[in-house]
């Protein structure tokens, strides 16, 4: 069990070390691809175990919980690790044609693999301080990737990204310290019980708000998202894609984890704040996208907007809403990473991502058009693609909860998302190229074409599969939501039967307050 849980962390680290030591030649990049494939395999094994046995946990160093550090995987963790494996492999392959030798020699693959390791670690850890450590691993690797290449625009974006994320990091660290000072424990399953025994419950809510802000910066919610649109369009496309897919989702994951497992002692207060945050995040993000005129910047702002949907699911805190949040999380990572990858190909063959300076892709690269339309329409929530189901569940959850305003906001934001996607389609694909360039895929070498288009096509197929056959995914999300709303299984897996709290769980408590 221990190794099933640890291998998604070990494999990318080992890959990073090897790829770095072999960075001089072509071996490095193939090690990276192989390592990513191994990570995907390991994540699949993890998923099988979790599906089979429910929540699984293991104690690192064989020190019993809550004393040592626990790695634990419930369905949400497992699926996030699987998605990390999928996007990691896709981007590794894409990078074969995207990352120049110069960047490889500076250690691109090591940085990338450590990023994956940090992400997996954050998804798998059951210890709040360890979560902080993985956040930092991820953060420093993302710093390196962001500035790799060293163009001026990257440095500028890097300054904003680094400063704002460091502020959030310090806040997170202080929050961990204070939480430890109140409860004396760091183990998240243990914290579930410990926070309920704290005398000053109001103070706990204050700490919860601190965590909300710290994770809120990471997740890029309103009004803390500035670093994302300021920087995500500046690095190499592979880097943008993995950032867009995974990084903010770790913040969302952390919010979901802490606000279903630990901070459920004051749900009417904390989750109402989250609901407002969700609404504003959706709206401001999508309006930001509408104001942009560059494919990558539009896509960056859309991340913000889509984060709002996920937070909405958490904020409503009903079984169906959590289903929506989980479904949205999974769907969005695939789709958003893919859109960035498509934008990269468009840039390669048409010369830019600025919508005024490109065009003609529909006529000359129809296959790319198809590959764009699938994730784009999915993002916009058109049926029967994956995004529709995600949005449908969340809208239904809002309407069921009689939160009509947030439902309306979700729908209107969907419409504006359609507008942005068709803007890209209209300008980059339909409109003739302003410089008369014929942007054909044949401008790429066959090797590059294979490396660039295979991941895109695979992710698009995945989007379609989720869209056409949503039932297993919905059922999965339902099981996952059940685990999140009733953390008993999680706690038993970590601490054993004896630790099951007598106090009502989050959901029961919510029902009681109604």
């Amino acid at each position, binding site marked *: 069990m221990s190794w099933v849980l640890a291998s998604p962390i070990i494999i990318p680290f080992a890959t990073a070390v090897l790829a770095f030591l072999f960075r001089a030649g072509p071996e490095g990049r193939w090690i990276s691809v192989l390592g990513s494939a191994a990570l995907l395999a390991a994540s699949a094994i993890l998923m099988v175990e979790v599906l089979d046995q429910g929540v699984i946990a293991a104690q690192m160093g064989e020190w019993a919980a809550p004393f040592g550090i626990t790695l634990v995987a419930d369905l949400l963790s497992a699926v996030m690790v699987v998605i990390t494996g999928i996007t990691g492999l896709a981007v590794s392959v894409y990078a074969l044609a995207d990352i120049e030798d110069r960047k490889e020699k500076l250690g691109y693959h090591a940085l990338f693999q450590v990023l994956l390791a940090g992400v997996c670690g954050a998804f798998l850890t059951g210890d709040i301080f360890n979560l902080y450590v993985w956040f*930092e691993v991820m953060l420093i690797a993302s710093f390196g990737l962001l*500035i790799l290449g060293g163009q001026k625009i990257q440095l500028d974006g890097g300054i904003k990204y680094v400063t704002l994320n460091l502020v959030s990091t310090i806040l997170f660290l202080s929050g961990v310290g204070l939480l430890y000072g109140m409860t004396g424990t760091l183990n998240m399953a243990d914290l579930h019980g410990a926070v309920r025994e704290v005398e000053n419950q109001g103070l706990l809510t204050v700490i919860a708000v601190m965590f909300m802000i710290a994770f809120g910066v990471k997740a890029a919610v309103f009004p803390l998202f500035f670093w994302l649109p300021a920087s995500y369009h500046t690095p190499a496309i592979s880097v943008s894609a993995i950032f867009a897919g995974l990084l903010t989702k770790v913040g969302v994951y952390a919010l979901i984890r802490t606000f279903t497992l630990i901070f459920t002692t004051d749900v009417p207060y904390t989750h109402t704040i989250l609901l407002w945050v969700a609404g504003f995040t959706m709206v401001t993000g999508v309006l930001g996208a509408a104001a942009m005129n560059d494919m990558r910047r539009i896509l960056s702002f859309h991340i913000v907007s889509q984060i709002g949907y996920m937070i909405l699911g958490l904020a409503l805190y009903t079984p169906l809403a959590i289903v929506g949040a989980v479904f949205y999380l999974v769907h969005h990572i695939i789709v958003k990473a893919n859109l960035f990858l498509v934008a990269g190909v468009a840039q390669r063959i048409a010369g830019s991502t600025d919508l005024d300076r490109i065009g003609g892709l529909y006529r000359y690269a129809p296959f790319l058009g198809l590959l764009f339309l699938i994730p784009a329409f999915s993002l916009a929530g058109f049926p029967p693609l994956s995004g529709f189901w995600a949005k449908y569940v969340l809208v239904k959850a809002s309407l069921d909860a009689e939160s009509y305003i947030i439902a309306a906001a979700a729908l209107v934001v969907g419409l504006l998302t*359609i507008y942005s996607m068709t803007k890209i389609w209209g300008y980059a694909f339909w409109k003739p190229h302003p410089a008369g360039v014929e942007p054909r895929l044949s401008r790429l070498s066959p090797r590059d074409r294979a490396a660039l288009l295979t991941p895109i096509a695979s992710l698009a197929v995945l989007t379609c599969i989720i869209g056409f056959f949503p039932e297993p995914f919905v059922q999965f999300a339902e099981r996952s939501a059940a685990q999140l709303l009733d953390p008993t299984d999680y706690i038993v897996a970590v601490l054993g039967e004896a630790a099951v709290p007598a106090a009502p769980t989050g959901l029961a408590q919510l029902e009681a307050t109604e």
Partner: protein
Amino acid sequence: MAKTGAEVPRVYGGPAGWISVAIPAAIFAFMLQFVAPVAAGQPVLLGLDWVPSMDIRLSVLIDGLSLTFALLISGIGMLVTLYSTKYLGTHPEYPRFVLFLMLFMVGMLGLVLADNLIALFVFWEITTISSYLLIGFSSDEAKSRRSALQALLVTGTGGLALLAGMILLGNVAGSFELSVILQQGDAIRAHPLYVPIVILFLAGAFTKSAQFPFHFWLPNAMAAPTPVSAYLHSATMVKGGVYLMARMNPALGETDLWFWALVIAGGFTTVFASILAVRQTDIKQVLAYTTLMALGALTLFIGAGTADAIKGMMTFLVVHSLYKAALFLMIGIVDHETGTRDVDTLRGLGRKMPLTFLGGAIAALSMAGIPPLVGFIGKEFLYKAGLGLDTASLWVTGCIFAASALMFVAAGISVLRPFTGKLAPTPQAPHEGPWAMWIGPLLLGAFSLGFGLFPDTIEAWLVAPGTWAVYGDYGYSVDLYLFREVNAAFLLSLATFATGAVLYAVHRPMRDRLGRLFEANPIKFDPGWDRVLDGLKALAAWQTNILQSGVLQRYIFTIFLTLAVGIGATLWARDVLNFSVDWTGDLDGLLFKHWAVLIFITSGAILTALTSSRMTAIAALGVVGIGVALIFIMFSAPDVAITQLLVETLVVVLVAVAMLKLPHLGLAKDRGRRPVHAALAGTVGVLVTLVMVAVLQGDIDRRITDYFEVASWPEAYGRNIVNVILVDFRAIDTFGEIAVVVIAALAAYALLRGTRYGAPADKEEDRT
């Protein structure tokens, strides 16, 4: 489009062409088998699970209404695709066109056949997407792109409203299955959510079916190739909204809200559109507006809601699909062969294009409502239903009368003028089109005539079952006939012909006058659309300039402000601070060295913040760092203290080295904002202190440390507990920590080596 077709295509679009014809033909043939059971009053219900955990099924309901639509969709689809093989077969993007058209057809069939609301919505949106791609087919032209976007956003808006309405309705009815929902009309109408549900459904239906004031997108959508117009914008997609209203009538209808909403919107649309129709000079636009008129009329009669009205509506639905598709196809041939659609240019084509003329003429006669064509029957029964209404009879009849008279004119404009008289010169020499193109209008014309002469067939197969389904009463006896007696409806028909003939005679001066009238009208929907879109963009730009200003200082300020507000508000809202602090206990046993360190650190921090000298700042930072190390020493943390000292030294050295190349601090620029910054900084500081004091009030639970103390030597063989925690109990933390250190070094190295002074390096120095 005409240009590509003029290359005299020999290939009928290759395999894509034949596939595109075969699929609708097969579907049409398949659907025919249901005619008999449905005509016998037995709807067919088939089911297939899709997302059972959310009650979403791919279930199919075949009754009179859906069967009528399915036959029209597949039948006309077959003619249109056959026509397209000639019209677009040599176009380089023809296979894509076929793909989109087939996608559309699947969507449309799914829409009308689905028994599950959510499945219906899925197909509804598929028609929206595919029509977007079809309207924008001539993607080089900005007008096409704009029209496509307009159609998408208008119908998309309605679609989203519809989705909300469907979810609410599903919740109210306890099921998404139409076959269940339609049984619960009374419960639904009594529910408090009835009004919002109706409004949301109508938002969907009105935008899709281009009812006033959402009508403006439909004429613009004529930027699509003619086969698309013939198919989407006459017979199928725009009728999706009509279908929805008809379908929901048993569940949502029979209320005042439903009645007046549909009757007013439908009536207004029908008259307004027919006036607009006769002022057009592009025949395709004439037909586009007459389509709007028909949609209005259908809406009007669904709203009217009596059995007679529904019967009239069903009849007119079939009638209109037959003649309108034929007319669109006809004008496509004319455009294809002559290069123009201008009503003032085209004259006397009848002799050059006899078959096209024949097909067009039958359709036009049907549109004008002249016996013995089926159009006459349609009009007659509309009149009868209108006259038979209890409320709003005059309004309904009046609207239909006005519209029918103008239809008469429109029929004249679109067929009589271009085909009769003396041949006028056109951009291309006119000649008859290929068989694949004229066969459509002729076949449709034959049906118009056949159904007119033998109304029993259409009654038994389509109209009666359809009426039962929409009216929700399978006992109602439907009776269609061409002529039985001279009654009020018949007299109205005669009056319609007379009025129409007069108006046709004066239609050109009328057109000019209408043109001036509309020029003077301040309310314009199409430019208004641009203004809405511009407003949206302006709003977006405005908010983004405020939020995402690009100014780092504001970003940081906002984050700290959020922190201050979040913590402050929560401290207040949750009344956290009502405890008493034991200061004396805290001050007990404090020695001089403690005070010295505290003052040391505090003054160092303040000095760093306030000094404008870099060197002073660095020195002050050093003081703080050493002070903190002293605290660690005083409170029994030697490892931490050593590390702190070493790291602090390193930090100061690094800063000092970097400083050699960095400019002075330059505080002056911040001066104006300093009080605000100081206030926020002070607030955050006070809040942190308050929270910390509150946290430190209680005792800490030391059970984890207790365990470490006991286990450290016997089980982990180490006497330095801190080190044992680092390398054993929590080794994975330390592993992450060193990973941070390595990656920080690599990243910094990449920065220093990957970028050169002033410009990014082109080549990396190869040190390996």
